[in-house]
Every structure is written in C-alpha cells, then in structure tokens.
C-alpha cells in the first residue's frame, strides 16, 4: 500500500508551514518522513542543503538533533521529572553538566513552566505536558520543529495558548515550524503557508489566504467550512484592505437578525457606493467580521456608521478614505 505519492514540498526558512488533511490522508507518514522516522521508498528529503536520505545511521542521528519534534500525546518519559525530560536530548550530546543545567533553566523559562521543574508528567495538565515537549524539542537549538498533531489532544483554550507559544518561538528564534493538523483553526492562527493533503497527495498548496480565499478542491472547501460547492466566505487580511478604494469598515454583531437588517439598509443607501469585500475571522472562528468598503462623501459615510452603531452593530474602521 502506498501512503504517499508524488509529494513535493519546499518549505522556506523561518516560516510556519501547515499540512492539513483528514485522518488517513497520510499526514503522519509525511511529517515522520521529514526526520526519516518513516523511510520513503523513493525520493529525497533535504534540510538546509543536507540530503537526509543519503546519510548513514550515525549521520542521521546527528542530523536529527537539529530537528525538533513534538507529538499529539506528548511522548514524555513519565519516569522523569520535567527538568529531567528536558535534559534527555542534552544528555545525548556532550554538553557539560553546568551548561546543561543552565540550558534547562532557560528552556523552562521560555515555555513558562517555572516552579514545575521537579514535577512528574502525571502531575501536569495536557497543556503543561506539551510545553515540556516543546522545551525538550528546542533543547538542542533545532533548525526545524515538527509538530505532529501537537494540539489535537488539547481543549480549545489550551490549544490557543500552545499555538501562541509556537508562534512566539517562530518569531523570536526564527525557527521553521512544520505542522500537521486536521483543524482549520490551527492553520488560520499560525501558518504562513498551507498544503492540503488528500489520499496521499498534495492537492493544493500556497499561502493560507490564497488557498482558503479561493479553494479549488472540494476537500479544501470542506475545511474552509462550506461543502455545498457554492462560493465560500473570503478570508481577508488587513494588508489586502489597504489597497482597496474607499473607507473600509469591519462589521460584527451578536444578533444575526439585526445585523442582516442593518447590512441590507447600508447596501441600499443611495448616497453611497457600498461593496461587501468578504469575511474575516478573529482568533476563534466564532467571531466573524463582515468587511465592507464604502465610497462617497465623508459626511454620508460618518452618518451611515453612526446609524449602524445605534442599531447595535460593532463597527471598526479599518481604513479611512483619503
């Protein structure tokens, strides 16, 4: 059986690259191939100019030290404390004891686990366990961090905090992150680029905005949350809005009925030229913003915005007309 075929990915240094797919799509196999836990029958894997597929066993072990990995079920040694777990990868290198201890303290600070040094994994919450996993993966200053469904066993709130931590690490250390997931929120929250994996093949890839604003494949549309095949909500980045003409406002309301009523009134305003640009999502998909551009006299625009606000619609002016 072929788990993957014709997979070709080029991941840029310093980016967060997401691979999304349903279970059985081959995601796990794919991420395991990057550090050769899973050996490809053909093809090459090159990291930072070194072809991993050409290395012997000893060279591969060396190279794996510069590829960090975190797991869905954390895979910590329960017989070791937090500090001892983080020490594990450092014990495999010839680091002096003093340097090792300094490094452990630094990593514990980085992932925010101060005071938990001598706790055992069984005494930690899922989020804390994953923080230990992250610290352990970063111990030897890797070039790449592989995340194998790292947030799938966590609740939404914890997922969010772990993603924030990963995002911070990506920015402060310039660490390249490759993650696999079946959750759209993960991709939306931290990824720069995304590949959609289906049946062992990459069916679509590109920047997160481009892939999800204009999904070509049915499976991609499903992930975006619309599997009727009709037009899908457009995800807009603030940077795109800058190039749009007119005043751009972002609208949202708790009550859907009043919101639709207000929106249709705005669209019917004959003094203005109003265009709906699309939808934007906040950190959680529940907060959906409708992005609208308005052209017309600035007095009329201000009036229209005041009317919307009086009707209970939250209005954020993203860009003022100049």
């Amino acid at each position: 059986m072929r788990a993957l075929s014709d997979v070709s990915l080029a991941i840029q240094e310093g980016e967060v690259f997401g691979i999304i797919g349903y279970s059985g799509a081959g995601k796990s196999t794919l991420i395991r191939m990057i550090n050769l836990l899973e050996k490809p029958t053909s093809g090459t894997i090159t990291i930072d100019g070194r072809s991993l597929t050409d290395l012997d066993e000893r060279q591969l072990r060396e190279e794996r030290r510069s590829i960090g990995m975190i797991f869905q079920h954390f895979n910590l040694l329960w017989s070791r404390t937090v500090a001892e777990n983080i020490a594990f990868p450092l014990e495999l290198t010839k680091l002096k004891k003093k340097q090792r201890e300094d490094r452990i303290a630094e990593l514990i600070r980085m992932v925010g686990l101060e005071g938990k040094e001598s706790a055992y994994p069984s005494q930690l919450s899922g989020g804390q366990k994953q923080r230990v996993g992250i610290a352990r993966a970063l111990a030897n200053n890797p070039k790449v961090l592989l995340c194998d469904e790292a947030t799938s066993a966590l609740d939404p709130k914890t997922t969010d905090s772990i993603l924030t931590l990963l995002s911070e690490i990506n920015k402060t250390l310039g660490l390249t992150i490759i993650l696999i997931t079946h959750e759209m929120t993960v991709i939306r929250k931290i990824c720069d680029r995304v590949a959609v994996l289906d049946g062992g093949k990459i069916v679509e890839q590109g920047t997160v905005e481009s892939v999800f604003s204009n999904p070509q494949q049915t499976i991609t549309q499903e992930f975006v949350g619309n599997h009727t095949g009709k037009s899908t909500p457009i995800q807009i980045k603030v940077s795109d809005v800058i190039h749009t003409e007119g005043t751009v406002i972002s609208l949202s309301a708790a009550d859907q009925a009043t919101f639709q009523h207000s929106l249709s009134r705005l669209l019917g305003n004959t003094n203005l030229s109003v265009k709906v640009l699309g939808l934007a999502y906040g950190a959680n998909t529940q907060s959906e913003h409708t992005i609208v551009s308005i052209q017309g006299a600035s007095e009329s625009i201000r009036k229209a915005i005041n009317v919307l606000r009086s009707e209970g619609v939250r209005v954020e002016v993203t860009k003022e007309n100049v």
Partner: protein
Amino acid sequence: MFEWLQNVDWPSMWLSTGQTLYMTAISGVFTFFLGVALGLLLYLTAKGGLYENQIIYRFIASFVNVFRSIPFIILIILLIPLTVIIIGTMIGASAALPSIIIGAAPFYARLVEIGLREVDKGVIEAAQAMGATKWQIVWKVLLPEALPSLSSGMTVTLIALIGNTAMAGVVGAGGLGTIAYNEGFQANNNTITFIATVIILVIVFIIQYVGDHITRRVDKR
C-alpha cells in the same frame, strides 16, 4: 504455655533460615540480571523490535519456554551434571543455586519482556527523533520506563523462588526445606515443620511488602 517450643533445636533452625536466605539472595541477584538480559533480548529481537532477529528470538524463546515448563523437582535432577561442573558438588546450599536460577530466570525473563512491551511506543519514537542510539534507548528509555514492571515482576519471582529453595531442600540443599522434611516430617516432629513454615511465610510477607513498596516508589505514572 510455650513448652512445645522446647522440642525445637533453635540453633539449627536459625542456621537453616540463614541457608534459605542465602539461597534466595544469591539466586535472586543472578535471576534478576539473567532475567533482565534475556527479557531485553526477547523484546529487542522480537518482530518490530529495535534489533529484530527471528533466529535469535526463536532460540531464546524456546530456551525460556522449555526451562519454564520443566517441573522444578525434575529440573534439579536433570541439572546435577551441570551443578557438579560449576559448584563441584551436588549437596548443599550452593549446589542448589544453578537449578534455582535456571528455573527462575526464564520465568522472570517473560515478565521482563511483558513489562518492556508496555513501554509507550511513542516515547521510543520520541527518543529516536531526538537522535538517541539504540543503546541509549535501552538504558535511558526502556529500562527506566519499565522499572515498576521489573520491580513487581521480581517480587513475584522471588516468592516463587523461595518455594523452589524449599523444594531443593528435600534433595539435600539445606535450608528450611531440609529441616522441615528431615527433622519435621521424617522424625515425626510436627512442631519443626510448623516453625519452618512460619519462618518461610514471614520471609515471603517481608519480600511482598518491600517489593510492593519499591514498586510504588518507582511508579510515577
């Protein structure tokens, strides 16, 4: 009230207790190391193991199965030539050691193998991903993570092993088995048999208690 205890030759009772403890301790140490080694070999050479090797696995597995299946009293007799070669005699506490060890180690090896199988595959994979050698995986992952199983398995094995020392006593190993059989049963002195039994029970309870305590201490799950 305790006159009946006058019939007991206490110095020889304590000497026998010492012999039983001696046989248990020495064979326990050997059984532990031999069992861990065999159990590790079974685990590592099994299908999907780190050193998968059908031939070695089958060889060790059949060795373990054969010696685990032979009734101990027969094993002692079968091993007399080997005992004479190793120890130089077939009588006495030391002479009982080879057969006790060869009887107990395969049993413990299977318990070790089961314990190692319970180690989370994900943790082994994580160690591989970090660039650990197979040897480092054995020492830093497999054995420490399986420690509670190794400890509880050793407790069970030690208790079974005490039973074997008593059985070896009947064929001249010395210890509480010998005293219970020779001076108790054959001399029709039930008090001696009774006292020997009580001492063996006390030893078993102590081992069980200490073993459980150690198992709990090392188990951080």
